[in-house]
């Protein structure tokens, strides 16, 4: 290489490319698996993944207002599609990284029966769910209750979490006796990790198809591209599955 300056800049670029950082907005229900995947990804690639967890609707509002995220792991498929249409998501980068399952869960090991009859007997004061306006597991919960014909009778007992993590915390602390959360939050190694649960039948709500999208801010960032590829790999898939998600 004749030009020392060009050589120097190439070397610098290579160094940066090796230890790049990616900012990821992660749907709250995917918190635990993503922490595990990110740790593995950092070990395998040398890149660093900075994770923010929250409700998908909130992330959408932040992204269209210039938030510095490079990847969105959404809790639905509509938000990534909308972002792509608005030019904030990279065209063709969308794919389904997980399909979520809705579960009625209680910290009390005997409260929720295997068929969810508790919803009809109504032996509880508070039913927690995520805000249906901004969180897809909240939308799914409302949909399921509607199909069961219980929406009107139970609505007055709703307590809404700002996202699915706060919803789980309401239930875990016992302040709400039971509520709808993502299976991934209460599932470990092939079974419900604690309390009692009813896995809501899939025909009661629209499939919770969780899509990922590369955002325009991450378009030319090696770490962002690498992480998206990593999520499609076998190691990541095994982790995703271990939390009870379905895969495409």
């Amino acid at each position, binding site marked *: 290489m004749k030009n020392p300056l060009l050589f120097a800049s190439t070397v610098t670029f290579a160094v940066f490319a090796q230890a790049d950082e990616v900012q990821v907005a992660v749907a709250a229900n995917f918190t635990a698996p993503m922490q595990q995947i990110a740790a593995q990804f950092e070990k395998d690639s040398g890149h660093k993944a900075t994770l923010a967890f929250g*409700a998908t*609707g909130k992330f959408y509002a932040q992204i269209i207002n210039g938030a510095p995220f490079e990847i969105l792991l959404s809790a639905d498929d509509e938000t990534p599609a909308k972002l792509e249409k608005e030019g904030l998501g990279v065209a063709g980068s969308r794919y389904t990284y997980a399909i979520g399952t809705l579960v009625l869960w209680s910290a009390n090991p005997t409260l929720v029966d295997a068929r969810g009859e508790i919803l009809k007997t109504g032996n509880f004061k508070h039913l927690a769910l995520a805000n249906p*306006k901004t969180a897809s597991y909240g939308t799914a919960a409302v949909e399921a209750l509607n199909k069961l014909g219980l929406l009107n009778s139970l609505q007055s007992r*709703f307590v809404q*979490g700002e996202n699915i993590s706060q919803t789980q915390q309401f239930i875990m602390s016992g*302040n709400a006796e039971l509520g709808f959360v993502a299976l991934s939050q209460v599932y470990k190694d092939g079974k419900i990790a604690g309390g009692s649960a009813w896995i809501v039948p899939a025909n009661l709500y629209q499939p919770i198809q969780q899509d990922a999208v590369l955002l325009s801010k991450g378009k030319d960032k090696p770490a962002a591209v690498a992480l998206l590829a990593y999520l499609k790999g076998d190691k990541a898939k095994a982790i995703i599955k271990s939390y009870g998600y379905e895969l495409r």
Partner: protein
Amino acid sequence: MESSDLGAVWLTLKLATIVTVLLLIIGTPIAWWLARTRSAFKGMVGAIVALPLVLPPTVLGFYLLITMGPNGPVGQLTQSLGLGLLPFTFPGLVIASVFYSLPFAVQPIQNAFEAIGERPLEVAATLRASPWDTFWSVAVPLAKPGFVSGAILGFAHTVGEFGIVLMIGGNIPDKTRVVSVQIYDHVEALEYTQAHWLAGGMVLFSFLVLLGLYTFNPARRKTL
């Protein structure tokens, strides 16, 4: 405005009114004691009352959620009294708000009591007024600007509360969904028009309250 917005406004005004009345009832004896005592505990009690000024609402919200929950001491007490649990209820919000707004009511009243000094109270005593009579006929009228400031600040601060309500409220229409939470919901759901109505209203309300406080109650500058 939607009906849910009006419901939130009404709920917020109801909450702030009840909290203000309670703040005056609870805050006045505390302020009186703090103003007059020579006890070694004065500093400690003053510091505890002032804690919400510096603590993030998340800290209070977190502890309230734990202590008022089914496994917490307050939660077990309220359950054994047949009152149920306080989180996600209007009374729960009232209690949380009283804690959170306490220094805003106590401090102006305390300062006003301190500004009276010993002399008027001694004069009243030589005229054979009982301490109770002295308090109501001398101290309270003289400290009136402090009461006005404390009530207005306590009210306004309760209206402006957000973090604790988000943590222990559960976002229930007409029970715990106050204006600040409703605004947050609108912003999250990208309903910016509705958010503007409520948020703009809050700016106007808060400005008018403070304008009133500074214009009609010049004593406030002395007392805080």
